[in-house]
């Protein structure tokens, strides 16, 4: 969630910090010669390395090895038990991208499902979170309490809540009960919402949106509360109604936040699979298989088949997709100023 939060300002912090540092280096050693300034600079660099040292050391221990290992594995065939890897070059990648009659159909189906998730979750999250933030921003009383209630889904998202969702989506579960109570009994799902191949994926998307709305809503609310009120008053004096000033003034001003919300959700929709693993495990059939889940399955649920390299390659393809989205996102943001 905060990923994005960081990104909002994260677009420039590196440069920012740099500027600060320079200013200090030039400003602090007043009355000293170039020699003193240089010593000051060296001292600062030493402190800098000292402060980042723990982070770098941990990364060297846990990060470098795992990333390099995972990357080279993506060019190999291995089942985890063979004493040696069989090198395959780019074959894992080409197999996944259409070359293999075994894996291509799996990947194709999972990619289609993932595409729905990647489009559906961010879009619906914005469609729910933005109006919700607008409405919440308009009330003064209970705002704090409501904000906490709306934030609950994020706070508890994880295995416990996925089990709770499973429970209420069961054939005899609360959703079917609710539909019957309000007289919409014909809409019930006799096999349960996750048991019917046609409703399983949309249901999962709704659950993911439910988890994603809190952060998006809070970010929009933050944006709304820092809006300059005089702009809106001017528009209202000119006769613009609520709808008009919202669509022509507020919405455009919230664009940077929208971009951030979309980026974060695209990233999670591309790579996340915990909810799928726990709630549907891809089923029924392959109706909820997504790329993240297939990666996990190829790596860990494939017994002795030598598919660890394939899994790794699929993971790196997801990484590239996420980077591309991030890049487009940053470009779009820059264009919007």
């Amino acid at each position: 969630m905060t990923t994005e939060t960081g990104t909002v300002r994260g677009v420039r912090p590196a440069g920012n910090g740099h500027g600060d540092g320079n200013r200090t280096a030039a400003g602090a050693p007043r009355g000293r010669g170039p020699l003193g300034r240089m010593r000051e600079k060296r001292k600062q660099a030493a402190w800098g390395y000292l402060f980042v040292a723990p982070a770098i050391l941990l990364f060297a221990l846990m990060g470098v090895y795992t990333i390099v290992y995972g990357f080279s594995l993506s060019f190999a065939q291995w089942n985890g038990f063979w004493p040696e890897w069989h090198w395959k070059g780019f074959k894992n990648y080409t197999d996944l991208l259409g070359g293999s009659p075994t894996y291509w159909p799996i990947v194709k189906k999972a990619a289609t499902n993932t595409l729905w998730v990647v489009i559906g979750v961010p879009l619906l999250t914005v469609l729910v979170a933005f109006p919700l933030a607008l409405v919440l921003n308009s009330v003064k009383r209970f705002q704090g309490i409501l904000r906490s209630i709306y934030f609950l889904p994020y706070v508890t998202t994880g295995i416990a809540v996925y089990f709770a969702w499973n429970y209420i989506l069961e054939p005899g579960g609360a959703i079917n009960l609710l539909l019957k109570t309000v007289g919409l009994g014909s809409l019930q799902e006799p096999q349960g919402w996750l048991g019917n191949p046609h409703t399983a994926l949309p249901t999962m998307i709704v659950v993911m949106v439910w988890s994603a709305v809190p952060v998006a809503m809070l970010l929009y609310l933050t944006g709304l509360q820092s809006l300059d009120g005089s702009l809106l008053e001017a528009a209202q004096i000119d006769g613009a109604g609520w709808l008009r000033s919202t669509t022509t003034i507020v919405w455009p001003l919230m664009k940077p936040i929208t971009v951030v919300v979309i980026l974060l959700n695209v990233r999670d929709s591309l790579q996340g699979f915990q909810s799928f693993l726990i709630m549907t495990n891809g089923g029924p059939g392959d109706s909820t298989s997504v790329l993240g889940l297939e990666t996990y399955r190829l790596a860990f649920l494939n017994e002795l088949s030598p598919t660890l390299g394939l899994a790794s390659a699929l993971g790196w393809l997801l990484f590239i997709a996420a980077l591309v989205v991030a890049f487009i996102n940053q470009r779009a943001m820059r264009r919007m100023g």
Partner: protein
Amino acid sequence: MSSQALSTPRRTGAPGRTAHASRTGSRRSVGRIVVGVVLAAYAAVSVYPFLWMVSAAFKTNAEVQEGGHLIPHHPTLQTFSDTWNKLDFFDYFLNSVKVTVLTTVLVVVIYSAASYAFSVLDFPGKKWLYRLFLVLLFVPGVVTLLPIVLLESKLDILGTHWGLILPFVNGSAPLAILMLTSSFNSVPTELREAARMDGAGELRIFSRIYLPLARPAIVTIALLTAIPTWNEYQLTRISLNDPHSYTLPIALQTMQSSNVVQYNSLMAAALIMVVPVIALFLCAQRYFVNGLMGAVKG
């Protein structure tokens, strides 16, 4: 909901505008009802799964199976205490607390220091290091899962709690550095320069000026580390073998995979897992919201 939604409503009490005023008035009260309904509806959507979680936790298994009602007819604490006692929940709970607390503390300590360097100090290679940590944000966790397990078996920490904590801390690096660096960037430069004039060293400036001023961001990053760590499931499931070292998510998982799912026990266990996180959030909420806001406003 119209005008009210966007600006503070202003009383238009001037004579000669009464007709207009009362019309806006009635429209306003209709608006208020709409606003109220929308807010209440989404509040219901937000809490719906928890209500059923609580409901099932206070039912017997027979009552869960007959289904269909939110308020238990014969509310019982038996499910709760059975789940807690029979399944060694206290041990799992302590394991979870240990892993979560150590991870969170390490994240805050290590990455607030690193972020101070990225934000304030100048050293060769800083830009590249910073970018490296940003890119790590996009590495899917699943590609490093297996290498972590192999590495840890070489280091002989596989299956221990440290074997969870170290990768969790490292995995939190990008987000923590992003947020804390932006927060430190908004501390006025003058403060630091004044402190330097007075002869304060970096360690002192960091701990006496930067850390206190960034408290909202630090609480935020602590929560954003603690919550996912508390819920973490994949690495934990792959790396832990000894039931004594299990954390709550794994305990829940084993309950679900036993042949018949007893939803009342499962929901009681889920509630045990969820309640501490809710309590933590409510305690830290004020800082949390401010921390997010600070990060957005820049």
